């Protein structure tokens, strides 16, 4: 866990040092967009560091497409 936290701190700090001075010169819309992108970053960081079994993007795609995709593959294999 310590290794993961250290790794994320290095990545976070590098990005913030690079982006924050630039963000100050940007308009409101760009700052809000940047802030919105921070939400999934915080969520995924928690999942990564604490090894949580919370849903990620892959689960969302699986929820919608996995069963029909499996059915298509089974159908291709069996019907022809």
């Amino acid at each position, binding site marked *: 866990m310590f290794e993961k936290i250290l790794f994320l701190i290095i990545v976070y700090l590098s990005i913030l040092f690079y982006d924050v001075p630039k963000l100050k010169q940007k308009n409101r819309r760009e700052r809000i967009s940047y802030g919105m*992108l921070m939400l999934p970053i915080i969520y995924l960081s928690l999942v990564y560091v604490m090894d949580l079994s919370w849903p990620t993007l892959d689960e969302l795609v699986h929820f919608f497409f996995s069963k029909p995709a499996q059915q298509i593959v089974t159908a291709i294999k069996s019907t022809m």
Partner: protein
Amino acid sequence: MQKKETISSGQMAVLFFSFMLGSSIVNIPQPLVQAAHNGAWLSILIANGFGMLLLACILYLYRKNPNLTLIDYSRRILGKWITLCISIPIVLLLFLILSYIIIDIGGFFTTTMMRETPSYVFYALILLVAALTVQAGIEVMARMFVLLLCYSICFSIAVLLLVSSHYQVENLLPIFPEGLKPAIHGAYMTLGFPYGELVLFSFLLPFIRNEKNSSLQKYMFSILLIHGLLLIISILCTIMVLGSLAGTFKFSLFQLARLINIREILTRVESFIGIALVVGSYMKATIMLFILKEVLSRVLHLKDERILIFPVTLISLLLTLTMFHTEIEFMEAVFVVEPLALAIVGVLPLLFITIVTFFRGKKIETNNST
């Protein structure tokens, strides 16, 4: 306000080749032979035909109005809110595909070359280099990828030539041991990676400089043909060398390169094909990141889209670290789920917009000019 970057149609063709070839020449043969056996080449032919259809649609839309992307067309035809419903799944899919590319290359390193190093090191470094390249812009990408693409293709072909002493043509028979079913299954697998992903490339076309565009179509179709040919050749060579084991060994070209031993002088050339795989994946990841940045900035109506590059890269990094626990889950996601997801999220809107534009083409052009 930054000056809009533009590249020539020849450079766009190079980017297209990098995008299509990427890591597919090393990654595709094994799962495809596993599914379609000796008929894997037919799967590529079918999927390549499908790719041609998608490319024809993309180029038709581009010809109608070179400045519009799929999202702009959708905004004009379907309105703001439906476009938002189309754009969000495309953005999510782009995140997903970018993460798949990075997971694949990390998996390659940790299973073949550097087994002791934790995978997050590879993920972070490749994404960092990709992000810095995207920051440099499409002109730099187009110029740099010419060299990297040449390296990738030359070493892949060199390996196929040097391993020719191991070829056993009889391994290619019987061509369809279990009928056509496995070949159709193989075609379904490649409808996602790499051919379905072609839809996403359409977001780069507005970067082409205003010139006589007659050569663009020629370039793009030729490249799709050459790409299909290269994949078929690598599949056939893999089957000829490894026979029934071709569906077992991952990273087929890498395994072929391991067999090269010419008089104890030319040996251990697999590292070159390893570099080709890394380079291919890096190019594809960079282009995908660039597209993701473009799509996001169009959806959010941003003036300076470069500010999004690093947060988007960090999201992708965290997705690669949290998404899959086993190799089987990853393979199922790429070859079973992704083709359908891409078909619904990317291909269907493209086909719909193409059909609508075909019937209302003049109106859309007029709207743009006003």
